[in-house]
């Protein structure tokens, strides 16, 4: 049960003491029940809303008790009839709830360790609590050891001396222990703050930034949560209210996080999953489906990663090759003029959150203006409405939806692939596999433009001449001279772009 030792705006100290005893007595009398302490008997400015939030948390606890999943409940309920009651005097029972939230009572599953003070006397460092982390972690750094360190610190001193430095050190150590994205650990860290000591009780304290170091420390915890993109929950809010009060800076920061994060969470129209697949083949599949412009595109696994043993007994690692091609790309490739070469370009980077993968594309140069053939629309493609209409209606400039800008001339992309090893042999294998579904590849010369530097998908011909080119010749093709590399830039007439809004 939450025992909120509310601020007494009582005139004399004796009155305050009397009130305190009344409070303790009432708590003892309550026994096992979970009802809230009656509000109306208290004086004090803040307790109204604190009680509301406390009741909210009590309801949460009540729900958990009903579900039976919350074990530490029995530790905190003052049980006059249980065996522990004799050992723990009543006032200590109250104090236990005073300094820590009931949700974070010590978990009996983690055995406590006795850390002697003598060990740390000789070691004085600028960050005093780093040693504590090293000592208790003892090599294995995980969430359990991190929470154990926090428990050791909490247990050490009821007044939590040095908690600000400890929290700063803990925030710095979080990435090492791998808990920087865990909300429960942040809540436990906020729990280190003693409750209600930093809540301002009168208007002067409210005016003058009460306990600025602790407020900054609280802001720092929230800022690290914000950096890692973790949304706080209602426990964080209750903790902040208990520790700093409602109009404090950490509370304001919490409000800002809770306002802006939901707005940003689903803004990406192409979201990347939080946990990317570990398997490189699955990752490649995800990336290829992501960048394919067509929903009909199909991913084909041309080769899975395996280790082969050649005749000489060496082990050769075969990389994975995944390709993607859509039916419309296949049709376009079938119509491609065999006299014009195809280019395999790459590697191009693709960023997914923090990982960068590389893909290669098979494309051709843009067709010459003379070669462009406008195919008439096949009227059988659509029976419900005509695809072409001969009207002489024209739109005036106020109805134009397109931008008055020239088209960017670019050749069509016929297929894409991803592989771990981007050398000519692997990509040649990809092309030969593609040939099974696109027989025209057997007749067309394919050039490899593989570049390790930053790629742009359109290349200037002048910059190309000093890059390395490799020629790939199929055995059943005509020999083509490598003169295609140094083709002159074709002059394309500027056309209006027809972009739909």
């Amino acid at each position, binding site marked *: 049960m939450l025992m909120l030792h509310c601020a007494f705006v009582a005139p004399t100290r004796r009155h305050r003491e009397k009130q305190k005893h009344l409070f303790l007595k009432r708590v003892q009398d309550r026994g096992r029940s979970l009802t809230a302490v009656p509000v109306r008997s208290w004086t004090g400015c803040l307790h109204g809303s604190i009680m509301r939030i406390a009741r909210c948390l009590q309801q949460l606890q009540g729900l958990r008790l009903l579900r039976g999943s919350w074990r530490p409940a029995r530790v905190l309920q003052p049980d006059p009839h249980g065996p522990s009651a004799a050992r723990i005097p009543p006032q200590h029972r109250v104090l236990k709830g005073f300094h820590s939230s009931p949700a974070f009572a010590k978990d009996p599953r983690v055995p406590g360790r006795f850390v002697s003070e003598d060990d740390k006397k000789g070691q004085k460092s600028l960050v005093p609590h780093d040693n504590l982390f090293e000592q208790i972690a003892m090599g294995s750094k995980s969430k359990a050891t991190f929470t154990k360190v926090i428990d050791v610190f909490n247990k050490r001193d009821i007044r939590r001396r040095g908690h600000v430095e400890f929290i700063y050190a803990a925030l710095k150590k979080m990435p090492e222990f791998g808990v920087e994205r865990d909300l429960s650990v942040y809540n436990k860290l906020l729990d280190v703050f003693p409750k209600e000591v930093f809540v301002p009780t009168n208007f002067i304290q409210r005016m003058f930034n009460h306990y600025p170091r602790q407020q900054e420390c609280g802001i720092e915890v929230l800022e690290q949560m914000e950096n890692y*993109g973790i949304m706080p929950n209602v426990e964080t809010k209750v903790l902040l209210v208990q520790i700093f009060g409602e109009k404090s800076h950490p509370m304001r920061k919490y409000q800002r996080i809770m306002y802006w994060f939901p707005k940003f969470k689903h803004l990406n129209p192409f979201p990347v999953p939080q946990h990317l697949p570990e398997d490189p083949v699955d990752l490649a599949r995800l990336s290829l489906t992501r960048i394919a412009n067509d929903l009909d595109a199909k991913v084909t696994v041309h080769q899975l990663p395996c280790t082969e043993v050649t005749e000489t007994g060496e082990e050769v690692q075969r990389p994975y090759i995944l390709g993607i091609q859509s039916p419309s790309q296949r049709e376009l490739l079938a119509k491609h003029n065999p006299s014009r070469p195809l280019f395999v370009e790459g590697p191009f980077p693709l*960023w997914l959150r923090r990982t960068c993968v590389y893909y290669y594309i098979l494309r051709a140069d843009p067709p010459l203006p003379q070669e462009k053939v406008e195919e008439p629309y096949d009227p059988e493609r659509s029976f419900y409405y005509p695809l072409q209409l001969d009207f002489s209606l024209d739109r005036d400039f106020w109805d134009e939806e397109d931008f008055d800008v020239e088209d960017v001339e670019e050749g069509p992309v016929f297929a894409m692939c991803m592989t771990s090893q981007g050398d000519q042999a692997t990509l040649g294998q990809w092309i030969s596999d593609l040939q099974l579904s696109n027989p025209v590849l057997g007749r067309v010369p394919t050039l490899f433009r593989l570049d390790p530097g930053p790629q742009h998908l*359109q290349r200037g011909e002048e910059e190309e001449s000093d890059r390395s080119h490799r020629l790939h010749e199929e055995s059943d093709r005509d020999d083509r001279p490598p003169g295609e590399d140094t083709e002159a830039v074709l002059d394309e007439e500027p056309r209006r772009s027809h972009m739909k809004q």
Partner: protein
Amino acid sequence: MVFACDRLKPGMSFPKATRLLSLRSLTSVHQQHLLPSVPTRLVPSRTLIQNEYRRPGKPRENVLPWQKIKFDFSKGLEGIKKHFALLMKEVTDPWVGPEGRPLIEHMLEQNRVVWEFRGPESLEEWTLSSDREIGGQSEIHLKLGRNHTTCFLYGTLCSAPPKDGETRYSGYCTVRSKQPLASFDRKKHHDWSSFNSLHLRVRGDGRGAHWQDVKIPFSKFFLTHRGRIQDDQHPLWLDKINTIGFTLGDDADGPFQLEIDFIGVCKDPAHTEEFAYEKYKRNPQV
């Protein structure tokens, strides 16, 4: 940013603060933390003449405004001719209509291409910046793409903070357009009050080999100052746009690239939202 490159984000600049766009595709959820935790002093009043970037915390130079005006005769007559030509244009333009175009065109315009990259002089309109200025290691470059039809922005991001004891976060690269200037280097603003969306055609390393048409309504832009979202938000002033910028600031270290075909503004009749965020009270009740 990029809508295509999962990481950069565009921004518009105001006299006092910067508006950044909150698109998730542009950046991760992380906000930009570019500055040390030292509270900033009052923003100085801007003079008519554009200043160089001054690193926050560095003391301001005590140069009086009239000492900053350069009477540079090295450029000779061309400079003077250019300024007087601009002045003539400014005087004669209102006779034709607002901004030198007939009124009917100004009123009924649906689209306008503001920046397109058709030659080396178009790169002069953009300023590059990265955290090199505060001691970091990111770099950014801008060049023209193939056939001089697009611009190519590329570089490397490195979020190691500079070792000066006060900067905590780092790692950003930005490209910003220069403020339009009237005659004698006076500042002018873009007037986009008849439009309501920004239209970009970009291709980057977040979405692969295909061009992406991205439309961002101006109502989605929110107010930030030096990387922190401000409490009191208000809609963008479309008639006082100074610059537009693209910033990459997520924590993914490594090379990035973005290709921009053109940047335009358009009037989307289906978009009727005025402002996407609440105009906050200063001290709301908890």
